[in-house]
């Protein structure tokens, strides 16, 4: 559970904060020490735990610091830039900034970036990047221009990716945002366009980024108050191809702050973000910690004197300007658990928590993956989007339009592409929508049956019967038994009527012939384990020549049909709803199924553990339950069929012997208990003993 501790302020030296707050707060090479650069002429080194300044340096009157001071972690020197082009390097011993090392550069510096473990980088306003050492060796070297005219760098961050430094910076031009990722082991710059999606009017107020395996997770706080996440690959898929790639933003948290204020965002760890800003338009500013995994507000703290809309996070400290004073709030986060994350929500004690978090709405999910709550507006917007810019349409919607007109082959390719993208929280509903889209076209175009695409979707493990109600009906219509088998295995909520319809089809002759022909096609669709199962049975049989009841133990159905029937045995059902449907199955088929079940039972009883071989075999209970169900439903019919006579007789014998065993067991239960008692007494016989104990 995330917790904010008691805040404290750093004072001692008055900060010359301008209207834009501070230039920056940067880490030092010693823990607990931070360099704070105000927007005027001063750099102060603070020791945070002592709340006191260790040193303070100012540039001359008339000069202005343009870039926050940083620490070179390799040498322990401090670096600052004033008047955009003049670089100063100094150490703790130096007193006067005028007398320290100075280098005048040929271009304007945007920022110096320094993190532990690597040399600092200098990012120029034109987008070029240089290592500090190389730059100092030749200060007047020519600096190329990377970004276009009118493009302005908005934000930047420096990472270590598997021991290689990587730099990301965001530029803005006419309301469009671009991300540049530069890696220094390959010195390739990749450029991405950030797609703002439907909220094209919003302005991004704050960025933060963290590493997330092979991606940089870039979070942005927009003026609509929502936090969006974009995943930017660290290793571009096609490094040679330097053309513009697009990155989609996905909504991470909805309306955490009200827009139109100076809000700030900082990622704390993989599940938590800190947001600075007023939760409601009229309320005071708050520092809130949100859990992005559960979308819950963890804690919030009111900052009544207002902030400068800046937030820094290092180690365990959050830094911000509260009023005119630099405030440090220690932050701690224990491992988040569901209970911990939900626990806080129940109370909602804090005054700033009126904004309820946005959960996945199961009922309103028939729409197309968009989480906008006003449908009328959405339609308007969508129309507008379709008319204007094609690429800004969400991927799922694009796919749906593909489904409406393109060929099966093309749909398959597009689908594969779509499934490769990161899963959003509403992934299952999107998949459901796609299946419904596909089925809709199936209904209107009888020749259209995108079997492979449907198979692929079913195998995503996220579908259920209720999400795509038509799928099994269509499969039944097309007698697509593999699809039915897959559905039976995957869906947890198949109605009994449909299960029965499947069973009916599996037992019918149509299946058998078709099966023979399509064998190769079947094998690649997850049929193998079941088949092995039955093959094993047969193998075992042949290994036992002394088997006397040969005729009963040979499998009454072919392996394919057995595999299909096994899928039915595994499916969930409720007796009361299943029984009426079982009555509709023809008597011959019932007999066949009974024979198969009896065969399975005999197989079961052969092994000591009473289980069948194979990866996912039906259990003894499932077999027995189905035998009982079938007999309950069709006894009067089965009794009349001559072929079933021997089967019923053997079942009768079996039940009789079971009753016998149970009654015998009941008889000797008392003896068992006595034995158990004797055993216990043996263990606890000693009422008194003297033992030796050593305490360690």
């Amino acid at each position, binding site marked *: 559970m995330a917790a904010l501790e008691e805040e404290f302020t750093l004072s001692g030296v008055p900060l010359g904060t301008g209207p834009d707050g501070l230039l920056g707060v940067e880490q030092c090479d010693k823990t607990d020490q931070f360099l704070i650069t105000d927007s005027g002429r001063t750099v102060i080194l603070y020791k945070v735990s002592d709340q006191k300044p260790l040193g303070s340096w100012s540039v001359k009157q008339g000069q202005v610091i343009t870039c926050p001071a940083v620490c070179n972690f390799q040498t322990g020197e401090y670096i600052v830039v004033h008047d955009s082009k003049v670089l100063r390097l100094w150490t703790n011993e130096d007193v006067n900034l005028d007398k320290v090392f100075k280098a005048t550069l040929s271009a304007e510096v945007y920022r110096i970036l320094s993190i532990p473990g690597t040399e600092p980088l200098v990012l120029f306003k034109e987008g070029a990047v240089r290592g500090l050492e190389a730059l100092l060796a030749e200060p007047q070297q020519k600096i190329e221009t990377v970004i276009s005219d009118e493009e302005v760098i908005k934000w930047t961050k420096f990472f270590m990716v598997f021991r290689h430094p990587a730099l990301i910076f965001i530029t803005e031009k006419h309301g469009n945002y671009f991300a540049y990722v530069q890696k220094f082991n390959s010195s390739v710059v990749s450029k991405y366009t950030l797609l703002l999606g439907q909220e094209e009017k919003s302005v991004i107020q704050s960025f933060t980024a963290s590493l997330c395996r092979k991606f940089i997770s870039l979070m942005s706080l927009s003026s609509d108050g929502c936090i969006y996440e974009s995943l930017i690959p660290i290793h571009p898929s096609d490094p040679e191809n330097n053309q513009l790639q697009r990155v989609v933003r996905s909504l991470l948290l909805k309306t955490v702050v009200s827009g139109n204020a100076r809000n700030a965002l900082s990622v704390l760890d993989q599940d938590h973000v800190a947001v600075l800003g007023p939760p409601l338009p009229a309320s005071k500013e708050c520092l809130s910690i949100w859990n992005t995994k559960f979308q819950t507000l963890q804690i919030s703290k009111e900052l009544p004197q207002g902030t400068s809309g800046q937030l820094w996070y290092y180690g365990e400290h959050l830094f911000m300007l509260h009023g005119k004073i630099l405030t440090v709030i220690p932050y701690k986060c224990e491992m988040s658990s569901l*209970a911990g994350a939900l*626990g806080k929500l*129940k109370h909602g004690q804090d005054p700033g928590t009126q904004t309820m978090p946005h959960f996945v709405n199961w009922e309103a999910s028939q729409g197309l993956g968009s989480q906008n709550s006003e449908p009328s507006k959405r339609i308007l917007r969508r129309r507008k989007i379709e008319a204007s810019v094609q690429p800004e349409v969400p991927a799922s919607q694009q796919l749906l339009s593909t489904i409406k007109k393109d060929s099966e082959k093309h749909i398959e390719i597009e689908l594969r592409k779509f499934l490769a993208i990161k899963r959003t929280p509403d992934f299952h509903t999107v998949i459901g929508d796609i299946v419904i889209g596909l089925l809709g076209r199936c209904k209107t175009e009888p020749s259209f049956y995108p079997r492979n695409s449907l198979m692929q979707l079913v195998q995503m493990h996220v579908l259920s019967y209720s999400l795509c109600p038509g799928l099994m009906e269509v499969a039944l219509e097309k007698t697509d038994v593999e699809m039915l088998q897959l559905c039976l295995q995957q869906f947890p909520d198949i109605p009994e009527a449909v299960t029965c319809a499947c069973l009916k089809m599996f037992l019918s002759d149509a299946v058998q012939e078709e099966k023979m022909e399509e064998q190769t096609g079947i094998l690649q669709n997850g049929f193998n384990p079941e088949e092995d199962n039955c093959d094993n049975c047969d193998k075992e049989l042949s290994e036992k020549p002394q088997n006397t009841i040969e005729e009963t133990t040979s499998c009454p159905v072919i392996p394919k049909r057995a595999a299909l029937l096994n899928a039915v045995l595994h499916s969930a059902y409720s007796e009361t709803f299943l029984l009426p449907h079982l009555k509709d199955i023809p008597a011959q088929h019932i007999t066949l199924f009974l024979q198969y079940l009896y065969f399975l039972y005999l197989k079961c009883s052969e092994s000591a553990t009473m289980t069948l071989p194979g990866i996912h075999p039906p259990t003894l209970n499932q077999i027995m339950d189905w035998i009982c169900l079938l007999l309950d439903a069709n006894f009067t019919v089965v009794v009349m069929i001559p072929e079933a006579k021997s089967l019923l007789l053997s079942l009768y014998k079996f039940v009789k012997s079971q*009753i016998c*065993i*149970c*009654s015998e*067991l*009941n008889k000797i*239960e008392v003896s068992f208990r006595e034995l158990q008692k004797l055993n*216990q007494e043996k263990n*606890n016989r*000693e*009422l*008194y*003993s*003297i*033992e*030796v*104990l*050593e*305490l*360690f």
Partner: protein
Amino acid sequence: MGEFKVHRVRFFNYVPSGIRCVAYNNQSNRLAVSRTDGTVEIYNLSANYFQEKFFPGHESRATEALCWAKGQRLFSAGLNGEIIEYDLQALNIKYSMDAFGGPIWSMAASPSGSQLLVGCEDGSVKLFQINPDKIQFERNFDRQKSRILSLSWHPSGTHIAAGSIDCISVFDVKSGSAIHKMHVDRQYMGVSKRKCIIWGVAFLSDGTVISVDSAGKVQFWDSATGTLVKTHLVANADVQSIAVSDQEDSFVVGTAEGTVFHFQLVSVTSNSSEKQWVRTKPFQHHTHDVRTVAHSPTALISGGTDTHLVIRPLMEKVEVKNYDAALRKITFPHRRLISCSKKRQLLLFQFSHHLDLWRLGSTVATGKHGDTLPLSKDADHLLHLKTKGPENIICSCLSPCGSWIAYATASRFFLCRLNYEHDNISLHRVSKMPAFLRSAVQILFSEDSTKLFVASNQGSLHIFRLLEGSFKHLHTFQAQSGTVESMCLLAVSPDGNWLAASGTSAGVHVYNVKRLKLHCTVPAYNFPVTALAIAPKTNNLVIAHSDQQIFEYSIPDKQYTEWSRTIQKQGFHYLWLQRDTPITHISFHPKRPMHILLHDAYMFCIIDKSLPLPNDKTLLYNPLPPTNESDVIRRRTAHAFKISKRYKPLLFMDLLDERTLVAVERPLDDIIAQLPPPIKKKKFGT
């Protein structure tokens, strides 16, 4: 740390009585529990479920009903036909009153708490007015055909429901007449049983009456029309008890098969206002009949013939997932039943109606850790002392020299002198004990067995000098003015100068025995004291509280010791604080002043004050001996708490001499073996 010879004693064949009733008091968060032998215990659920008070049982007083009324007043009624009110301060019976209706089967206090209703054997329901000092009979309701086994008030106090045999009656309180009679089906799974006993009823504010009966049914009735609304068949045996939560959104029933079912009022579909009762959770924490259940706001409480009191927190009601959310099973009393004479190696066991005196055996062999040594002499049963009369023994004590036994019942105090001549023992009762000694709460002998200290239930402490075969009353410390709280725990310093006494809520008082005056009072603490002891030489008073805190208080200096302050500052190890049984005995090592020995039901511990305290990161309990470890590591990881969990459930542990311990265990299996067999469930077939 040292090696000990441990006398492992398992022949204390104590069997707790079965639980008959539980009553939960929301106001004080206390639970009253009555047992089949008539004992009534009070548990403080806020103080770590500590059993803080008890009223001794009585053979003729089988309690059938227990209830709280007027806030903190506790009443019971039983088969002797009497209604009893308990005095929770003085720990005695305030008064008992015959209801004149034969044995009483049920009792219920009105929602306002001002009236009491009892259901009698003769079919009458009697209404009593609760006055500040006593209860007063008001009137009878219409008499029913057979005994009234269960009663429940409508929350408005205008109607009551009474469960009898084969029928439930609804009475109007004003007129006293039955307005509905609902007949319960005798049929049970197609077989007609002889009778259907309504073991419990509950009247809800919407007019629904819930009944539980001997046919295994939980039934919902509409009291306005007298019709059956719904039936749940929950058991093949009797459903014996029911309790409804205050919000009326959940209730709990207990069955004779040992199962407890939780029913909850849940919406039929999501976001619909229509709600229905659904059986949600079954719990099987008992092996025998669940005779009684209670529903606190956060937990289900059940008790029955298997003698366990089970407190099962409802996870959805628990706000923070901490140790309070864990299931509690309370089996043994939170007080000592055993006293020990170190000199003669004797153990005195206290049962409800007799005392047993045993002499421990001996061995000449030696061995290493874990060995069982061959006995050269087995333990002897020396004496079986039966009490006269129907009252249970409240407390007992054996003097350290082994030649005095003292015990008390509610009405008498007994002091016996034992003479040992070779193998013969003779017992001589000291006669003419003063009358003010009756219903003593705690008895203690001084270390040299020359003084006897008795805490009476009126809050006073009596001191006697013991002479050969007689006694002399020396002094009585009167209770602090204004309090009548009795002192439940006593401790005397080994030099005989100091006497510490503690009640259930106020602080610990320390008296100077030589000067016969109050020396000081240890500041009161939020949680009750569970054990007290005074260390030799230093005269430090060690106090264990029910929240598992331990304090050490220097009596001469009248302040907490440095060690106590250190451990309070650093805090106890979290695992130490999570133990769920209280410390019941504290003792000291005669040669090692830095050691404190203490135990609860599942561990015993030697605290070595010279070693560093463990913090939450260190391993509190390390069962394995240090092997192949260098001395340095051993010294670094060593901490003050040396714990052994070898003996459990541990009822008593003490040092006999420097190298010998005695541990009295009571294995649960032995208790179960002495209980009546549970309802037989078929293991095989149908």
